[in-house]
């Protein structure tokens, strides 16, 4: 456990060292947020029928996306892990006293948390004080806020389980790029990162709803904005837990298999 905390600390210190990087990241996030909001604004401005999600809710959705980007994007690349796998140095990792799945999981978690720490507070703080209509609205009540935190954390666990599967797949393909790139492009589309899930056509929403991707980003954000009601959210949380169990089990199983192969090959 201590090891994970120190990974987190190290990352945080590292992130703080690069102050211009932090500022640049912030500026980038706001730029993206504004562009997305303006495009939605333009679309909404002449829409004749009522849309499935209101513009203020959508704006909140966009800001939350920007604030928690490092928690929700699929492609949070750790080159160190990739190199470990492709160079065969994984053998050293096997000598460590901790379980390898748990260790990597914690490492990825720590990295994302550290990077989110640096970003989310300033983004939320500034976005909450922007002039209307760009303001980030607050959750309607304490229950909603609590539910948001819970669903976001569960979503984070799910996304890490998914990215663990990506890393494990490199054992087989031995290439970090290419297919993985596609994996993340499709995954992020299905998580509502390109266009929000409620605005997708019905047939696509049907597909998205059975996959785990939207549970990582789209779901918590809609809980926050009140687009998904408290009672409904309570029904979906067990689904998050179910997916989490399935993904972790799958990850552990495939990792065990992959590691056995490494050992057989002689590392």
């Amino acid at each position, binding site marked *: 456990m201590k090891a994970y905390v120190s990974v987190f600390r190290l990352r945080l210190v590292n992130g703080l060292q*690069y*102050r*211009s*990087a932090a*500022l*640049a*990241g912030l*500026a*980038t996030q706001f*730029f*993206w947020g*504004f*562009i997305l909001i*303006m*495009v939605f604004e*333009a*679309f*909404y*401005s*002449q*829409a004749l029928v009522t*849309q499935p999600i209101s513009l203020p809710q959508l704006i909140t959705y966009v800001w939350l996306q920007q604030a928690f980007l490092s928690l929700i994007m699929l492609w949070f690349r750790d080159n160190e892990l990739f190199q470990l796998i492709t160079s065969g140095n994984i053998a050293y990792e096997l000598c460590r006293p901790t379980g390898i799945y748990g260790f990597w999981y914690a490492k990825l978690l720590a990295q994302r948390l550290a990077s989110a720490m640096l970003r989310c507070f300033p983004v939320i703080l500034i976005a909450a004080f922007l002039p209307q209509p760009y303001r980030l609205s607050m959750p309607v009540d304490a229950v909603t806020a609590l539910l948001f935190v819970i669903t976001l954390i569960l979503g984070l666990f799910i996304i890490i389980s998914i990215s663990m599967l990506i890393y494990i797949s490199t054992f087989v393909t031995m*290439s970090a*790029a*290419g*297919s993985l*790139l*596609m994996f993340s*492009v*499709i995954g*992020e*589309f299905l998580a509502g990162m*390109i*266009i929000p899930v409620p*605005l*997708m*056509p019905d047939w*696509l929403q049907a597909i998205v709803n059975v996959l785990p991707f939207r549970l990582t980003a789209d779901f918590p954000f809609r809980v926050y904005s009140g687009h998904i009601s408290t009672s409904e959210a309570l029904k979906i949380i067990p689904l998050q837990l179910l997916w989490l169990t399935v993904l972790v089990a799958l990850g552990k199983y495939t990792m065990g298999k992959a590691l056995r192969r490494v050992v057989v090959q002689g590392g």
Partner: protein
Amino acid sequence: MRLFGKYLLILFKSQMQYRTSFWLLSFGQFFIPFSVFAGLYFMFERFGQIRGWDFYEVALVFSVIHMAFALSECFARGFDMFSSLVINGEFDRLLVRPRNTVLQVLGSKFEFTRIGRLLQSVLVLAWAVSQIHMDWTFAKIVTLILMIMSGVFIFTGIFILMATMCFWTIQGLEISSIFTDGGREMAQYPLNIYQKWVTRFFTYVIPFGCVNYLPLMYILDRTEGSPVLYMLSPLAGCVFIIPCLLLWRFGVRHYRSTGS
């Protein structure tokens, strides 16, 4: 120019050493804008139009911008990846060679995998052109080509500006994505859908408006007054690269006095 060709050749040979990875990456490059385009399509399916522009008109802009972006990423990748050249000291190597630094940096890297993105935008362009109801005159075709060229110059100019920043700091380079990726995302819609200040900034400071708005008005016969100005506006985009090159020279001089 001949030397540029040689650089192309040698890097193409290098890339071909890793054929599988090349194809996989090209494939991925095809899909990234594809997912964005799919998003665009779904938005139009729901809303029908955006401030008076219909789907095919926006698709035309989308394809022009993505094509320009793909081309500049392919050929000006050396500037895009310049920070690594500075960090590992390779830039010193370029300075002990009797050639212009701009040419050498351009020649240091080509990203041929962008063929995927290029192909995707060609397909979208063909689709958009075939669906827009209007007569294509010679002048309009020239304007279209000018739009793409102008886009290439603007993106390359931005890459050069960002590379110049590396001479002072290699931190905070993430901000460059505002102008490259961000510029691309933003310019895939006609500029007038945005707030005034955005439109102004991206017309007078970084002249994307000369690529995706003014000439588009001409192509779609929406101009008022003399069409020639609209037609030639992409040339203003090309001019953008001149101050970028001047700043680059200033940056090189700074590098040589600090060595950082």
